[in-house]
């Protein structure tokens, strides 16, 4: 075979140069004879002849200028007029490849824009731009504007919004319209800055992330990830912004426990080590006494939610050993007739054999009296009044007599007025306490103080102490110019009481009359008198007579040898002088508030048995527990127990190393129910509507539940309370058929029925469930999870649901 001739020549004489930016090429290329010039930029053929003859200066001689690549000089040469002798027919120019590509790109852009305009401005823009399905809980909100207010503004509004900073709270507003939080909803953990600062010391916050930065709901709760997306499953990296190094390569990332679970000393002083080692068990582990608890659960019990461990009350935990301490307690004087130097006492009659001292209780009641008496009280150096000067003795005697006369006449109202005045409070026209900032007394405290006063005993004692009190005081007061009030003696409170008593009494409850002393002796744990007075005197700042009296009362009741010895077990916290807070009970957890950590004690006990207590709460035998109570700062303490991270890691290693924070930690800890709260609670899911008239109920309130369907179906309605108990509401004994028809509003209890549905304990959050199905179904088809919701895996078939929550208070 012959060697082929080369087709493509690259020499500049043999091959013309094709500019790559040419849009058009000669249409005769495919015929093998393209022109030299090529089409113009508009794609028009501009070649008429094969060459453009070149003439001389005179214009009478012409030369052919056809290039070599096109064949070189022609034989005949140009015509005399200078026209080329070889005409060419026009071609149909063809787009160059590059130009074709450019046109393709432009058309693609145009088509794309057209498609986008069609869909974005069209009726289905919502479904087109939606980034995915909503969760089924939100799916009923078919309109984007339910969550995205900007949607209704159209494309121009979206563009405007995109280029303008958005107030973060605007994004939250739609969420908060159903999910109601407090005013700190956008803050970290839903807490105010002050509250956050208080707890920040226990965490290692990331400096890069200000803990006060506001956060949008959608930062963590990401929608549009499908029907079954769990909105509560939050990326733990969000937590790591503030609470951990966000950059972790392997290893265990959970910090060591600090201030957990013991953030402050226990309110009740109970040295576990001492009790264990000295009082409960001997060296062999045997109980030292029958009353010793057999296990931790003898004294500790999980709360109704199973989360916290409460301590049983005194009867259930301490009384077995400590009840006798109250039986043997001594009494102390409350109201007396103090001894005075009667030698030179002019005016008031005074029993010469009175031998008591003035008590701080009396000083408090007397502090509401006149200035003279107050000045005398201010000069008292001790409670023994026998060394007072005559004038002072006289003033104080009249004061005491006036006090007793006041009580004799007006009963507890006299006490009430004096106590109110001593606490810088006021009463309204109806005699009710006005709560003001300056008032250091609450209505309940006042009631407790008054209820404990033994009026009958006092009235009886009065007859012995000052038999002529009435006549003497009436004369005295008239001389003083004080109005009598126009009341008759027969209407005096004590007069009435004494008329009902056959003979003088010397005891009334825990009160005793001992000559000139009205004394009180606590009889049992939780003595109301002690608790009432300690409650109103634990804060005794100030220098007035009343303030000093309160201080003195407090000192008496909390002294080492006080009758009740309350502070022997109940610690007192104080952050400033003369301002205490007695810890009457163990740590109380308000179920409305969530803790940062949710640890289900009941669940752990169920799984692992009682022995798990000491596994996690390891006894710290070296702790000087009692030293924690030598001061009043509850934050400085040594606990009997310690809890280490390693204990939790035995079972929860994955959660603690994989940053699965939500396994143990809560985010929304603010004190507002985070469940959906809606006025006229109406939720529609599927075809079932279920509602009640309000969302907050108190125990004992009647509730009316209503529901309707929009197509025939079988319906069941349940209630689960905060204990997890499930109660079937519909069908019921009054209506066993659970087939329901549309356009009818069904009521529970049924309309016209005498039956009522009453809210019962416990307090907390109850859920009302409505389930619908086109086929009849029994209760066996219903499955609930531990959180009180539906077990979605097992109830996939029953998709017609309606749920709402109510708060029981």
């Amino acid at each position, binding site marked *: *075979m*012959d060697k082929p001739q080369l087709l493509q020549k690259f020499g500049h004489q043999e091959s013309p140069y094709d500019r790559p930016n040419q849009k058009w090429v000669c249409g005769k*290329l495919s015929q*093998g004879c393209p022109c030299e010039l090529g089409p113009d930029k508009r794609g028009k053929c501009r070649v008429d002849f094969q060459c453009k003859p070149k003439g001389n200066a005179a214009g009478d001689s012409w030369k052919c200028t056809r290039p070599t690549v096109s064949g070189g000089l022609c034989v005949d040469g140009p015509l005399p007029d200078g026209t080329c002798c070889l005409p060419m027919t026009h071609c149909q120019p063809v787009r160059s490849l590059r130009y074709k590509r450019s046109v393709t790109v432009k058309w693609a*852009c145009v088509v794309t824009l057209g498609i986008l305009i069609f*869909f974005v401005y069209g009726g289905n823009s919502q479904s087109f731009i939606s980034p995915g399905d909503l969760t089924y809980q939100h799916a009923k909100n078919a309109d984007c504007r339910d969550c995205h207010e900007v949607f209704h503004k159209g494309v121009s509004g979206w563009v405007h*919004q*995109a280029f303008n900073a958005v107030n973060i709270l605007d994004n939250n507003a739609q969420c908060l319209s159903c999910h109601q939080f407090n005013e700190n909803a956008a803050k970290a953990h839903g807490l105010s800055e002050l509250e956050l600062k208080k707890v920040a010391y226990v965490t290692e916050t990331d400096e890069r992330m200000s803990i006060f930065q506001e956060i949008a709901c959608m930062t963590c709760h990401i929608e549009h990830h499908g029907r079954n997306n769990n909105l509560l499953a939050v990326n733990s990296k969000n937590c790591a912004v503030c609470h951990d190094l966000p950059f972790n390569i392997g290893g265990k990332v959970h910090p060591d426990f600090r201030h957990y679970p013991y953030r402050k000393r226990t309110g009740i002083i109970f040295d576990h080590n001492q009790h264990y080692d000295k009082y409960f068990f001997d060296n062999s582990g045997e109980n030292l006494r029958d009353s010793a608890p057999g296990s931790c659960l003898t004294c500790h019990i999980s709360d109704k939610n199973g989360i916290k461990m409460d301590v049983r009350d005194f009867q259930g935990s301490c009384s077995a050993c400590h009840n006798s301490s109250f039986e043997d307690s001594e009494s102390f004087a409350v109201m007396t007739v103090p001894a005075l130097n009667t030698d030179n006492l002019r005016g008031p009659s005074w029993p010469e054999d009175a031998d008591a001292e003035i008590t701080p209780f009396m000083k408090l009641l007397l502090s509401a009296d006149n200035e003279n008496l107050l000045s005398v009280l201010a000069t008292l150096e001790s409670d023994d009044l026998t060394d007072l000067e005559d004038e002072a003795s006289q003033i104080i005697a009249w004061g005491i007599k006036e006090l007793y006369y006041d009580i004799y006449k007006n009963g507890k109202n006299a006490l009430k007025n004096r106590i109110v005045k001593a606490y810088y409070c006021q009463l309204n026209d109806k005699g009710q306490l006005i709560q003001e900032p300056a008032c250091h007394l609450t209505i309940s405290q006042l009631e407790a103080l008054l209820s404990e006063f033994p009026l009958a005993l006092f009235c009886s004692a009065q007859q012995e102490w000052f038999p002529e009190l009435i006549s003497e005081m009436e004369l005295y007061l008239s001389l003083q110019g004080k109005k009598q009030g126009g009341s008759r003696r027969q209407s005096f409170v004590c007069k009435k009481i004494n008329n009902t008593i056959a003979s003088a009494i010397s005891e009334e409850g825990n009160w005793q009359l001992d000559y000139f002393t009205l004394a009180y002796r606590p009889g049992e744990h939780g003595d109301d008198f002690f608790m009432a007075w300690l409650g109103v005197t634990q804060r005794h700042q100030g220098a007035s007579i009343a303030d000093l009296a309160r201080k003195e009362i407090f000192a008496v009741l909390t002294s080492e040898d006080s009758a009740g010895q309350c502070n022997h077990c109940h610690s007192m916290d104080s952050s400033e002088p003369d301002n205490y807070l007695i810890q009457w009970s163990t740590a109380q957890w308000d179920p409305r508030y969530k803790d940062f950590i949710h640890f289900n004690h009941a669940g752990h006990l169920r799984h692992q048995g009682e022995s798990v207590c000491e596994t996690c709460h390891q006894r710290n035998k070296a702790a000087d527990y009692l030293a924690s109570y030598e001061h009043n700062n509850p934050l400085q303490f040594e606990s009997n127990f310690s809890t280490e991270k390693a204990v939790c890691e035995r079972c929860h290693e994955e959660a603690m190393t994989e940053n699965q924070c939500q396994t143990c930690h809560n985010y929304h800890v603010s004190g507002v129910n985070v469940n959906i709260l809606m006025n006229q609670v109406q939720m529609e899911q599927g075809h079932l509507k279920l509602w009640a008239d309000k969302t907050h109920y108190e125990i004992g309130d009647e509730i009316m539940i209503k529901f309707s369907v929009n197509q025939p179906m079988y319906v069941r309605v349940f209630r689960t309370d905060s204990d997890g108990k499930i109660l079937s509401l519909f069908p019921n004994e009054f209506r066993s058929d659970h087939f329901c028809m549309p356009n009818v509003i069904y009521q529970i209890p049924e309309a016209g029925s005498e039956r009522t549905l009453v809210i019962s304990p416990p307090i907390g959050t109850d859920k009302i469930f409505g389930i619908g199905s086109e086929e009849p179904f029994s209760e066996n088809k219903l499955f609930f999870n531990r959180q009180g919701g539906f077990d979605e895996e097992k109830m996939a078939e029953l998709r017609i649901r309606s749920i709402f929550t109510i708060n029981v208070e």
Partner: protein
Amino acid sequence: MQLAKRRIYNSLLSLSLIVVLLLILDFYGTPVYRMQVWSGWILLSLIVFLLLYNVRKKLTMLPLGRVAFWMQCHAYLGLVSGVIFLQHINFRVPSGYFECLLALAFIATAATGIIGLILSRIIPKFLTRRGEEVIFERIPLHTATLRVQAQALIIDCAETTKSEVLFEYYQQHLATYFFGPQNVLYHLSGSTTPWHHMLIKHQTFCRFLSDKEQEYADQLQTLMKQKDDLDFHYALQGMLKAWPFLHFPLSFVLFIFSLLHIVLVYAFIGDI
């Protein structure tokens, strides 16, 4: 720099860039720090830079660096953008019609780019191994040249040998062959089956020719081979010219989608 060294160097550099970007995004990888927005802006920046390559090729008069260097950047940053894209969509299939379209546009653009890159590395080797080097746009011209040569040969044969055998053979079997590109798909698949069939047919036919006709037949076979080589070049070079017809429009479509995506994100999510 030698090709292998350059590839290793550029690959390592790209890998380093990927690692750094992923670490940065993971370091701040929480919606609180707007990781998705960051990765989105990085992705858009990469897309814009990749688009600028086309602009650079047109602005040859400006001192913007060698086009070859830009090509290297385009290729490797394209790969980086693929990884950032996966990070941006969180390694899951997007839901929603528009987001699916956007993702498809990116994937299609990236896929055509990768395919084009592979083709541009493989095809030239095949082209140099066969036939002569021809300019793609001149192939019709060369086809016409071959056609004219074949026709002249046949006519000369008929005049010289006074036989129309070769002429009729040409008319029946080769006229269409020399008219335009043939057997494009076979050439793309690397198959030489059509040529072998044609050769066998031709050689079978030539057995019945006279010696003089045989000489013309041999020359005709040379032209046939040349035509086959030309078709080979047409097919493979055509492939090299064709894939940008997908890649370029898709990249602009992707850019338009991205702009709408940005508007929607900032309009509906706002300042997270």
